[in-house]
């Protein structure tokens, strides 16, 4: 067990290093001279002399390896440099925005988990009957509707037509509800399929015949035998969906005028603000690696078969 954790931690560290390398290379390999870009953004006339000065200032003239080490060192200390566009400290922006995106993902994940478990069990309880059809229909609809359309619909429904909830801003739980709802639709739909198909598959396994031969009722078999079998699968899928929600945040945050990481990243991409893109990407990648680590540990706790491999 300890062996596994230490090995898994090492694995994560290697991945982190790899991720940082990718982020760094992406920006270095970008076409066009960054120094020219910055010089133009600062409004000054980009004379060759001034460009040279900028290049010197941001360390463009140093060898690549040095630049990487410098950048990584700064990043570890929480210094992500200065935005090319606004000239502001990237790190200061990140700190505020992380909590916004965190709120979005945490709320969305919780809602998605609840809805998906409810829908999935409904379907598995009455397979191919009415509740199952309804749950499958909802899941299909949820997985097929583009998130930006869901956002538009909830704004039109809850804010424009009935004026129940605010359609933008990040102040208080009331303003959180619509973004949460929007961000949770896709993962809820996907996860409910995971629960439904997983339970159905578990219920078709040979050991369910043994459970039936014991005289257990279908309900008892569903909860005692099938449920523990899908727990690791569900945790895995939930991890993937939580990771995916960072992407959804990119769509949802601008829609509801939330100043989160997704919004920041999108702006960075739009204006080719490399420092911002790089910083956000590194944070996203770190987040995925972290989520994967937690998922692996949780699966280890719930699946004795995997536990054995590491004993």
């Amino acid at each position, binding site marked *: 067990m300890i062996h596994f954790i230490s090995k898994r931690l090492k694995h994560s560290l290697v991945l982190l290093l790899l991720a940082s390398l990718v982020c760094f290379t992406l920006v270095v390999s970008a076409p066009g001279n960054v120094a020219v870009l910055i010089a133009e953004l600062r409004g000054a006339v980009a004379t060759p002399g001034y460009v040279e000065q900028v290049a010197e200032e941001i360390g463009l003239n140093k060898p690549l390896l040095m630049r990487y080490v410098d950048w990584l060192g700064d990043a570890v200390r929480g210094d992500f440099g200065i935005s090319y566009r606004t000239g502001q400290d990237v790190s200061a922006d990140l700190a505020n925005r992380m909590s916004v995106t965190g709120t979005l993902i945490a709320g969305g994940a919780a809602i998605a988990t609840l809805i998906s478990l409810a829908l999935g069990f409904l379907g598995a309880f009455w397979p191919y009957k009415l509740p199952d059809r309804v749950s499958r229909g909802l899941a299909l609809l949820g997985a097929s509707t583009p998130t930006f359309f869901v956002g538009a619909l909830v704004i039109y429904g809850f804010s424009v037509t009935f004026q129940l909830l605010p359609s933008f801003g990040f102040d208080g739980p009331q303003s959180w509800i619509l973004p949460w709802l929007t961000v949770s639709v896709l993962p809820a739909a996907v996860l409910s399929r995971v629960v439904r198909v997983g339970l159905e598959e578990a219920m078709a396994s040979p050991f369910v015949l043994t459970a039936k031969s014991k005289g257990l009722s279908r309900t008892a078999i569903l909860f005692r035998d099938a449920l523990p079998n899908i727990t690791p699968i569900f945790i895995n899928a939930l991890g993937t969906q939580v990771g995916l929600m960072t992407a959804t945040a990119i769509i949802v945050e601008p829609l509801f005028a939330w100043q989160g990481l997704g919004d920041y990243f999108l702006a960075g991409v739009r204006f080719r603000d490399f420092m911002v893109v790089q910083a956000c990407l590194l944070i996203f990648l770190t987040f995925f690696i972290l989520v994967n680590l937690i998922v692996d540990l949780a699966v280890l706790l719930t699946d004795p078969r995997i536990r*054995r*491999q590491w004993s």
Partner: protein
Amino acid sequence: MTHAPVLKVENLQTRFKSVQRGKYVHAVDDVSIELYPGEIVGLVGESGCGKSTLGRTIVGLEKASSGRVLLDGVDLSALSGAALRDSRRALQYVFQDPYSCLNDRQTVGEAIDEALIIDGTKSPDERNRRTRELLDQVGLAYAVKDRHTRELSGGQRQRVAIARSLAVNPRVLICDEPVSALDLSIRAQVMNLFLRLQKDLSVACLFIAHDLALVRQAASRVYVMYLGRIVEQGPSQELYDHPSHPYSQMLLASVPEVDPRVEKLRSGPLLMGEVPSPTNPPSGCRFRTRCPLAVDDCARRTPPSHGLAPDHNAACVFAPDLHGGKRSALVHQPA
């Protein structure tokens, strides 16, 4: 036997990476066997004893970690690439499951044709003639060639698989439980096919099976394998009449009798426990953990192989006593 063996396996060893990290499964450990032209040789043992892995390693489906396989005196481990494929073609394998060893999408004719093409038969007329001949050899009508393999019964499929193996003119067939997936009432038909092929084509067969009675009737010699090693070998009649390794004795004694009058009299001690994990095999004699005769010395060193009768060897310190009947694994020993 004066003539040279067609297949000679020397000190073969096969190891796999274990599911448990950093450990190895010692599936086949220092095994040497010989096959002479036109003989059927049995290889018996419990499942998990490595007999299938041995067969698969011989034909190259698993990689040997050490040891040599010599076919007609040619060392296959020294060859590689196309030369290896061409030489090893004389060594064919018959699979246990007749359902998955043929490609579902091919017809019988296409399956056999492909083997002939691989073997280098260029002319289509010649391939047609050979297909007819091969189907006839395994007792199938020529018309079967246009059927899809999935439409055939298990017995028919196994015949097709055998015909395909024969297409490349093998000298040796390694048969891995070739009838255990077939219905009881048709096993004899396929077994008789093997007997006929051995007589007509003088192909040598290594017959891997857990059904001891089947092996006794088909094979002239038998190897008994336990946990990756050959523990006893000898001519069938001699070995079945005078099993001289405690494992062979107990294995033979555990086969139930069909006749209730005989079965009710049978009451030796059973071979207790199960084959230990090949990831951590016992030291010294690997059978000692289940052996009623085991003494301290068995844990210390691998028992030497004792010659007991012409061509009959057993790797047990008590083999001469067991062979002579002075001792038996089948009576309770005083502790």
